[in-house]
């Protein structure tokens, strides 16, 4: 019995206690190396068809091991996700991978946290130009390629950085993650992306009536101010388009506010109607503007004197451009240009005129004013861009965040447009009268511009993913309704050559998986622990002989009876 073996048993008990404590220390040390699963928000590359050809990333679900750029050369990556932070991104490497159609399990690009509209705040971006160019190039490459694996964007934070550092360490040791060597596994459990059925474009128009005296038999002339509000970018869930065209929307709202102040008093109401248009479908050859104009009454269309379209006026220093499609010698164009240049001189900035002829047979519409010109309405686009953008370019991409917009530029742009409009309406051309002077009750309100710009910089606005009663569109309508007499909303279907697919954002789960060898090792350790415990108990209670007798065959009956 245990009592007779007391001194020996006590010693054994102490020894086993030591071994337990030793095992404990080992365990405590091991536990620190293991991470629990982590989950992050990730945003998918856009997937669309243009005239039947597929573009963008064609898959959404992901379930592969992760590797960094330091993977050992010659390794098969068809079941691996490459995780690349933007600062280490080499465009030629990515281009090579995509153009040569090399197999890859997935791609995760880590964007710097400062670009995130949720957590980045208004911190300054280091090396603005370099990052902007890199992002623009990456976006151009990804949008125009057909990529047969999922591509996601995520923002860097501490957790992802530690995971990435760990992955890099493993890769440098020459052990890319597979089922037998352990590592990190990236899982994104989403369904297969489906087509967005009948995407809607919503055009919002606001009407400010001019002063109709008894003598006017005909309709008053109208001036239109238009801006398109939707965006398109590599990651639709991140396409906030602060400059393209958030700046235009904010300028339009501010102009409408100023003129509503003027028009609220019959004494200062001008003899022109003002038509404000917030159109959708901008990136897709201004499809929405075309449908909006087609829906007009013929009389209304003929009464439009001219239209000013605002496109990206948020990050310029001293020069703005007026793009027209009618030749500059045209009397109306001259009038518009002179009006704007006179005010520009007073505001100490330059405006230049750019003429681009329209080719009716070419469906490409690069500027919004071209849609007006195709219906014989005089129009011009005011923009900081001097070069005509390509299809799906300058439509609010990855780099178009709040930090790249300068609200002073927007304030000056508003002043320019509002003054020149007012001088035309009230017949003060050429006179040096400041209607919207600073410190007056009609001054441009920078706080209003800033607050709306902040809101816009946090709202992704890709048209196929905005439903008919999207809260943001309703908010725009409500805001415009506060400044004009009458607001109308027009819903159209986005037809034409574009088809879009859903699933724009998802949740990434990162698991640290153990290799098979680790599992076997653990099994061995636990097995030996249990065996040791069992033998210890048998020895202390029944004696060593009993333990050994467990393994010996029982003596055969023959010998016993013999």
């Amino acid at each position, binding site marked *: 019995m245990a*009592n007779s073996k007391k001194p020996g048993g006590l010693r054994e008990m102490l020894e086993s206690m030591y071994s337990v404590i030793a095992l*404990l220390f080992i365990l*405590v040390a091991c536990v620190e190396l*293991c991470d*629990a699963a982590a989950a992050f928000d990730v945003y998918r590359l856009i997937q669309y068809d243009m005239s039947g050809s597929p573009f963008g990333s064609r898959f959404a679900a992901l379930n592969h091991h992760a590797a960094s750029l330091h993977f050992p050369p010659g390794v098969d990556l068809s079941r691996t996700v490459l995780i690349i932070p933007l600062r280490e991104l080499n465009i030629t490497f990515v281009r090579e991978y995509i153009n040569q159609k090399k197999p890859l399990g997935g791609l995760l690009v880590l964007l710097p946290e400062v670009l995130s509209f949720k957590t980045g705040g208004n911190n300054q971006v280091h090396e603005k130009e370099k990052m902007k160019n890199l992002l623009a190039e990456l976006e151009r490459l990804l949008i125009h390629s057909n990529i047969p694996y999922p591509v996601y964007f995520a923002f860097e934070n501490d957790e992802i950085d530690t995971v990435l550092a760990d992955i890099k360490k493993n890769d440098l040791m020459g052990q890319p993650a597979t089922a037998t060597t352990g590592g990190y596994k990236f899982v994104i459990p989403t369904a297969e992306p489906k087509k967005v059925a009948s995407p809607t474009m919503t055009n919002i128009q606001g009407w400010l009536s001019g002063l109709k005296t008894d003598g006017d038999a005909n309709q008053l002339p109208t001036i239109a101010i238009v801006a398109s509000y939707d965006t398109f970018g590599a990651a639709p869930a991140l396409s906030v388009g602060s400059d393209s065209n958030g700046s235009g929307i904010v300028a339009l709202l501010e102009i409408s506010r100023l003129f509503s102040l003027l028009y609220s008093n019959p004494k200062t109401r001008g003899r022109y109607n003002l038509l404000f248009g917030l159109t959708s479908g901008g990136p897709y050859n201004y499809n929405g503007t075309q449908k909006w104009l087609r829906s007009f009454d013929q009389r209304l269309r003929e009464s439009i004197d001219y239209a000013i379209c605002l496109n990206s006026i948020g990050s310029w220093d001293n020069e703005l451009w007026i793009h027209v499609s009618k030749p500059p010698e045209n009397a109306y164009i001259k009038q518009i240009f002179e009006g704007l240049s006179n005010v520009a001189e007073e505001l100490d900035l330059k405006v230049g005129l750019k003429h681009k002829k329209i080719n009716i047979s070419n469906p490409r519409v690069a500027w919004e004013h071209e849609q007006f010109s195709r219906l014989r309405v005089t129009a011009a686009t005011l923009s900081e861009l001097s070069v005509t953008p390509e299809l799906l370019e300058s439509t609010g991409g990855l780099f178009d965040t709040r930090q790249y917009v300068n609200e002073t530029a927007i304030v000056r742009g508003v002043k320019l447009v509002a003054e020149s409009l007012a001088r035309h309406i009230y017949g003060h051309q050429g006179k040096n009268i400041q209607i919207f002077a600073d410190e007056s009750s009609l001054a441009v309100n920078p706080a209003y511009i800033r607050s709306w710009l902040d809101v816009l910089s946090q709202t992704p606005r890709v048209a196929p993913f905005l439903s008919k009663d999207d809260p943001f569109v309703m908010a725009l309508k409500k805001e415009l309704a506060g400044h004009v007499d009458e607001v109308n909303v027009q819903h159209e279907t986005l037809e034409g050559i574009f088809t879009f697919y859903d699933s724009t954002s998802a949740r990434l789960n990162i698991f640290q998986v153990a290799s098979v060898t680790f599992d076997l090792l653990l099994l061995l350790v636990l097995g030996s622990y249990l065996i040791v415990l069992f033998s210890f108990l048998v020895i202390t209670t029944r004696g060593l002989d009993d333990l050994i007798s467990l393994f010996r065959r029982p003596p055969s009956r023959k010998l016993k009876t013999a």
Partner: protein
Amino acid sequence: MEKFVGYTFQELLKALIGFIDVAGLYLALTQLTHRNISQNHKFQAVGLGWALADSVLHRLAPLWVGARGLEFTWDYILQGLEANANLVLSISLAALGSLIWLRKNKPKTLIPIIYACAGIVATMPSITSYLRRGLGWHFPKVVGFELFTSLVMAFISWQLFSACQRPYV
């Protein structure tokens, strides 16, 4: 005692369950006398059975649901070790319980020690939850503490048991 500071309803419930343990062991030790077992073996059997039921009810469900996931965590291994410690604690509690309720001729000096040890072992769950919540110890540390105290308590109760076995001096 400081551990009573910051007690919530949950903690009180846990302490209550600890004492239900004691009550259950009391019933098992005293009421189930239909078999002729010596006192030595009785407490071992009761302690073993109690610890088995406790382990199965506490740990089987989380193990089945959680350990089959993709991610490896050390939690379940630690829970196994905790179950070991729990086993030892249950047996020592049963031993002390059998000393308190079944053995009538105890040396007078040892009685308060027996009751004190029994009290400590019975309130073990509250102590561990205080360590985890109040002091913020991590799970491996708590399991280590449990293993250590279980061995210490087992040793002490073993000494007490054998002391009570000695012929009365």
